[in-house]
């Protein structure tokens, strides 16, 4: 008899399955990209994107666009598992639920990261941006902020598939909890772009937020998955 695979093996396999599914269908990434593009274009009609002014608000716009697009992707993560009762099969299997949660979160992290890689150049072009502060800090903020959105988003998506009108439900429960993270990512980005103040506090806050909520998610995912 072969020994039972560990948490990491299951996480890796589950993640590989999600990536393969996404690679073949491209459901999440396509809808996310097009949605974010639309948001960016529509924002540019809302005000005059001249260089000085836009640097001050670009951080906010970029993250709001990414937030909306993330919700589009998150809504699809678990619905995929409802077809053919995959989720029920997972509940019956002895695999640790945390592995499933981690795989889903990492998958979403990758999707949103790809979105960001494609969106940021577009943003720079459309809004004529040039960072005053060091660019590597933006990278740190992006990684922390994306994880902050995705870890809670994946958890709340698992809550909202159990409700009526599930697509509406996710932003309603995700946005209020994410307000401090949003504030941190927007202000950190703005302070790096304008170079007017230090983003260190915000980066610390995002780190604390990520650590706290990753822990809470991992603890609470098991009762939520098995709720009935």
């Amino acid at each position, binding site marked *: 008899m072969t020994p039972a695979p560990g948490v990491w093996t299951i996480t890796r396999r589950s993640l590989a399955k999600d990536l393969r599914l996404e690679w073949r269908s491209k459901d999440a990434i396509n809808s996310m990209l097009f949605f974010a593009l639309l948001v960016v274009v529509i924002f540019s009609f809302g005000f005059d994107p001249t260089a000085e002014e836009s640097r001050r608000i670009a951080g906010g716009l970029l993250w709001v666009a990414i937030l909306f697009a993330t919700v589009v992707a998150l809504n699809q993560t678990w619905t995929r598992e409802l077809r053919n009762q995959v989720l029920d099969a997972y509940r019956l299997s002895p695999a640790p639920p945390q592995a499933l949660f981690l795989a889903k979160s990492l998958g979403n992290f990758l999707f949103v990261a790809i979105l960001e890689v494609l969106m940021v150049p577009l943003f720079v072009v459309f809004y004529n941006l040039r960072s005053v502060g060091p660019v590597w800090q933006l990278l740190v903020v992006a990684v922390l902020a994306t994880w902050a959105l995705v870890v809670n988003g994946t958890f709340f998506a698992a*809550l909202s598939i159990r409700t009526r009108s599930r697509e509406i439900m996710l932003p309603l429960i995700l946005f209020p909890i994410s307000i401090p993270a949003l504030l941190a990512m927007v202000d950190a980005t703005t302070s790096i772009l304008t170079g007017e103040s230090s983003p260190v506090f915000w980066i610390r*806050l995002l780190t604390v*937020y990520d650590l706290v*909520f990753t822990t809470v998610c991992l603890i609470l995912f098991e009762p*939520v998955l098995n*709720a009935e």
Partner: protein
Amino acid sequence: MKPLFNILIVCTALLVGYGFCQAMFIAPTEATMGDVQRIFYYHLPSAWVAFLLFFVNFLASCWYLIRRGKGADALALAAAEVGVVYCSIVLITGPIWARPIWGIWWTWDARLTSTLVLWLIYVSYLVLRHYAIGGQVPVLAAALGIFGFVDVPIVYMAIRWFRTQHPQPVIAGGEGSGLDHRMWVAVLWNLLAFSMLALVYVIVRYRQALEVQEIEEAHAHAALDLEEAQ
């Protein structure tokens, strides 16, 4: 239990009346703000009671996830509902006072903003409870209750920093330091009255929630019996 509860209601009604007298007639009129300041005797106790109720919701949510008692879930629901009502009172009485004193209804000051975010978090909790289906509601709600409470300190930190970095749009306000002792008396009486009132509401809602649970269970059993009969 019934007579005890009735005594509690009578005591609460008397206290609310006495608190009103204290706030409106006995406490001295504030020197610069005038009578408008008297809304403070309702504003502050409501805020304290709301925070207390959200804490109760957190404890009940944890208790539910550990022990799965039906009572814990009913208590979490009752505390969140009454807490949202009290938090709404805070958010409504604040602007009524701010308009004549600050000249504006609202400002994105640290305390105002964090109270608003707190209110949003617990409204989303109630929305989830309303939309979730079946027997899983308590677990999902308890999870969100814990998330909400864990978020509160982070919200406070973020918004305090956000507001200390930027200049305050409005200065003035901010009593607290030199409160007349008769004012303190009025505050404490009203705090007691509002806490008792909250207790009455929570008890009523708690009982109703338990009854709803029983009715739903009875329905589920009836459906099962019907299936077996067929």
